């Protein structure tokens, strides 16, 4: 640490403290409980098409927020794909190198369990804690293990199909929102009778997009590392 960095550090500390105080003030000035909002959710649960409150909020009442979240992920994946090397196959190409027995053992043990677990939390999302984000991240974790072991996952998917999977999440919301508008409903307003099926369809698309997106991020990083 050079001496000239000291004022900078003091400034950073001051700024951090100020931000911390601001956050603390905001947290303390929040209203004690949002009972009326909770009651509104309870009241609308019957028409949401699912029985789990978090899923009903994420995909039904606040679907727009979720749509923006997966858009952020899509932008990150696209940005890294543009910045990365042309070939993302290096993770596969190095499959011939020796893999440590613990890693090979972990892959055999964990990957099937992770895939099974992802399917479970995806389907259970309509009635309990779970859903697309959990299923997608579990699949991505399995994919990371496979990439680490040199097998490759997303790298094996042909480029156009991979891009299709990346945009599947945003695409599902566009389809659901567009159809709702065409039928004279509000944007992303799901028809109560089939809302449950709609949500499951969106969740499947979201899972595919999140899993391939996150795995592609990791594959791109590996490809850069391998080229050095």
């Amino acid at each position, binding site marked *: 640490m050079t001496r000239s960095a000291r004022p900078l550090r003091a400034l950073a500390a001051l700024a951090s403290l100020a931000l911390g105080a601001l956050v603390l003030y905001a947290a303390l000035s929040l209203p004690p409980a949002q009972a009326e909002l909770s009651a509104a959710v309870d009241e609308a649960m019957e028409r949401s098409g699912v029985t789990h409150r*978090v899923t009903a909020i994420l995909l039904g009442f606040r679907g727009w927020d979720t749509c923006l979240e997966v858009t952020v992920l899509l932008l990150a994946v696209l940005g890294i794909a543009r910045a990365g090397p042309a070939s993302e196959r290096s993770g596969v190409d*190095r499959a011939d*190198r020796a893999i*440590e027995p613990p890693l090979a053992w972990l892959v055999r043990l964990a990957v099937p369990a992770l895939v099974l677990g992802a399917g479970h*939390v995806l389907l259970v999302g309509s009635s309990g*804690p*779970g*859903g697309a*984000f*959990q299923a997608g*991240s*579990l699949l*991505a*974790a399995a994919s*990371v293990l496979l990439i*680490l072991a040199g097998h490759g996952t997303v790298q094996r998917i042909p480029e156009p199909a991979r891009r299709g999977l990346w945009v599947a999440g945003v695409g599902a919301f566009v389809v659901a929102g567009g159809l709702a508008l065409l039928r004279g409903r509000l944007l992303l307003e799901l028809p109560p009778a089939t809302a449950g099926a709609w949500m499951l369809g969106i969740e499947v698309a979201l899972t595919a997009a999140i899993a391939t997106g*996150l795995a592609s*991020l*990791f594959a791109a*990083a*590996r490809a*850069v*590392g*391998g080229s*050095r």
Partner: protein
Amino acid sequence: MPDGLFDLVLAILLTTLAYGTLTTRELFRAVVLFIAFGFLMALAWVRLAAPDLALAEAAIGAGLTGALLLDAARQVGDDPSDVSDVSDVSDASDDRDHPGGPA
């Protein structure tokens, strides 16, 4: 009240790990501390009755981000212009992942 004690220990550990992650000078050690922080954070979400968040935190926060950071730390460690404990970083990852890379 063992629950309260558990939460207290968890809170202290989380704060300590966060401080250690930010202040340690060795990149590899910082990443390992970050991963440990992520797993304890997942435990905190379980204690807050949010198992779905716990799952996402463990898979993305600790697992995926940790793996990405390990990769990044290895590559930064390869850089000779990096003056922080290079030996420690390269010891830890030890080029097992890229035989074609610099030894």
